[in-house]
């Protein structure tokens, strides 16, 4: 083992460029004639490359979270969230709080539009509400959706055939950090459903689509 230990050290120094000209030439000459040694040095090089790649991953993951957060809460004041209630039951706001409630006591069946989910980034569609089908096992959830710092309308295409959805209220929020956003959400939650235990969460638009398709909604970080 002693010998191999020395070889690994030699390989380390070679790969780091720490050998002097003579030492390097000597090692390279040995590698030319010794396949085993050549393989050892090459494997060592690849392992160090892998180690480096591995160490870069946390930064890439961290940036992903910022990207996701920025996408639906870019940190500009005056952003707006829309609170939706996905529910089979009847619960909506009565307007006793400061924000303007958008209430749709009579759910309107939504029109079917042919569109790829997630491809509709442009705001401008009027918020749609509607009932098409409900799942009895679906829990009441207050969903808020925001994108690019503006109210992201829940358009008909988002909700086609995807359960009962009602806009409960819209509320302006300032989201310069996840914590502040959460704080705003909590207040919306309290205002939106003071007497009921309904979880409030902000989800990105694509997650809303997943939720509506009864898929698992990713955890909000």
């Amino acid at each position, binding site marked *: *083992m002693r010998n191999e230990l020395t070889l690994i050290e030699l390989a380390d120094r070679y790969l780091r460029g720490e050998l002097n000209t003579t030492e390097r030439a000597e090692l390279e000459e040995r590698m030319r004639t010794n396949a085993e040694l050549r393989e050892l040095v090459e*494997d060592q090089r*690849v*392992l160090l490359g892998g*180690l*480096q*790649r591995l160490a870069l991953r946390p930064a*890439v993951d961290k940036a992903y979270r910022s990207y996701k957060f920025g996408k639906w809460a870019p940190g500009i004041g005056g952003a707006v969230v829309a609170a939706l209630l996905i529910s089979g039951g009847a619960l909506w706001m009565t307007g006793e709080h400061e924000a303007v409630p958008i209430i749709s006591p009579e759910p309107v069946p939504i029109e079917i539009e042919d569109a790829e989910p997630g491809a509709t980034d442009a705001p401008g569609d009027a918020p749609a509400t509607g009932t098409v089908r409900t799942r009895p096992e679906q829990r009441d959830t207050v969903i808020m959706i925001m994108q690019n710092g503006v109210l992201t309308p829940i358009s008909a295409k988002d909700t086609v055939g995807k359960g009962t959805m009602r806009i409960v209220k819209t509320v302006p929020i300032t989201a310069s950090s996840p914590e502040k956003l959460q704080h705003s959400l909590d207040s919306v939650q309290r205002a939106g459903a003071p007497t009921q235990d309904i979880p409030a969460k902000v989800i990105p638009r694509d997650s809303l689509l997943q939720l509506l398709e009864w898929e698992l909604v990713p955890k909000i970080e």
Partner: protein
Amino acid sequence: MSDPEILMQLRTGREHKALVELYAHLPKVERMVRNNSGTRADAKDLFQDALIILFGKAKEDGFALSCSIGTYLFAICRNRWQEELRRRGRFAQELDTVPDEPADLAALLAEEGRFGSAERALRSLGDKCLDLLKRFYLLKEPLLSIARSIGLSGEGAAKTRKYKCLEEARKRYRTLIAQGSIAQPQLP
């Protein structure tokens, strides 16, 4: 941020903003993957692997791009997704080729595939070995100080431990290579 600025930031350890900005290229990859039998999660893994490749290359001396960063990332994703489709037995599915994709892409992907296998091998070692190897090779911490902080008797013991970890990693890497493994998307 311009491409050279992004590369500079990746290179000099001020990478966060640059990386966040690079995610702007993710939706295009998502479309490509989802239109070709993949999920959004597949696309994310693929794209993050491409980011790791770019990030790793950017840290190399003398790295220069022959195309835009967007093209570079997309071409990597496109080619690796094609590979994945073949692995899944979908030989007939041909993805559109990327105009002006980097000329050395095949070599790059082969090399990065090896790094990916090495990454998997290292990850499977466990935290103790990983920690030691990272300290020694990436943080360039002296063996003696590593030995002290992980409770080894001295430099010699640390050196032996490092050797054992490396040997085990190498063994596992060799096994992966022999299995013809394709680097799986990595999760933290």
